[in-house]
């Protein structure tokens, strides 16, 4: 796992974070539920809690779909290519490429590969970008959520051991949970071995 330079994280007084969607996207509740599930995966293994807000002015994290140039100097590039990007804490900016075709999978399926396609699994990308919003950088561990690339049709939403160790390095474990060992065990059984590289 890795961090942003200087290892930024949300301040200890902020364990209850709020997120909001830019209104102009007019997202359905079904799409918003995908993000709620993605946030839950991180709150299960940390002391952090995430609540949806209707106000983008007061929310800690703002989520929006934008196409091409959208004002942050990092233009999107049409279908496939770059899928989304997110800022390090405590900025809370999460942008997804509005030119992608997104698949909303059932929550129960945690890993899978569709017949090769150019539709991208929304929850997989959301779980990854939330990792950045909380302070994680990219990982070389192929089955980690923070691995930078994902093929169209792939679905990877369960945190791997690498992800859990990285996020708990920043925030500690979930005081009410098993500290993530269960999530980590789950991902190890379903996700295959780590890439075999100790770093």
């Amino acid at each position, binding site marked *: *796992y*890795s*961090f*942003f*330079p200087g290892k930024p994280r949300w301040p200890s007084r902020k364990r209850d974070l709020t997120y909001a969607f830019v209104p102009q996207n007019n997202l*359905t509740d*079904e*799409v918003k539920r995908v993000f709620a599930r993605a946030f839950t995966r991180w709150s299960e293994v940390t002391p952090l809690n995430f609540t949806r807000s209707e106000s983008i002015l007061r929310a800690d994290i703002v989520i929006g779909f934008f196409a091409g140039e959208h004002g942050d100097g*990092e233009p*999107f*590039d*049409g*279908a*496939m*290519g*770059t*899928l*989304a*990007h*997110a800022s390090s804490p405590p900025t809370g900016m999460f942008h997804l490429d509005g030119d992608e*075709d*997104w*698949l*909303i*999978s*059932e929550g129960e399926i945690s890993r899978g590969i*569709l*017949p*090769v*396609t*150019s*539709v*991208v699994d*929304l929850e997989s*990308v959301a779980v*990854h*970008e939330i990792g*950045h919003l909380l302070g994680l*950088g*990219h*990982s*070389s561990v*192929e089955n980690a959520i923070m691995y*930078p*690339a*994902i*093929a*169209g*049709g792939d679905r990877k939403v369960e945190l791997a051991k690498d992800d859990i160790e990285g996020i708990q390095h920043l925030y500690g474990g979930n005081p009410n949970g098993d500290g993530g060992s269960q999530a980590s065990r789950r991902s190890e059984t379903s996700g295959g071995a780590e*890439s075999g*590289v*100790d*770093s």
Partner: protein
Amino acid sequence: KFYTNVSSIPPLHFLNATRSAWETFEKLTGCHVGEKIDGLSKLKQYFHRFGYITTTTAGDNFTDDFDDVLQSAINTYQKNFNLKVTGNLDASTLRQIVKPRCGNPDMIDGTSEMNAGKKLRTTER
């Protein structure tokens, strides 16, 4: 567009598996140091975007020369993605490059904490 289940995805998508903003890179397979190949400047922009080439000149000044800067970027990229470190544009490296990905860079200010930036404890087996 949002598809709520696989069956709602129109067949075209199953055919356009490699439809990607970067699929033109695949024609660079086999290039190596010293060559000048049309399209290498765009690949350098890709590596610049994800932090593998840190240069003060604006991205559009890149040349089509396969130079040391590009070879170094390829080496680091191959380390980060657990590929055989050859410094060349072999097929497996380009297959990885064209995959859709997160827009956040892998390297910031020329340093990475992915494989390439870590003291790896690996034993040759």
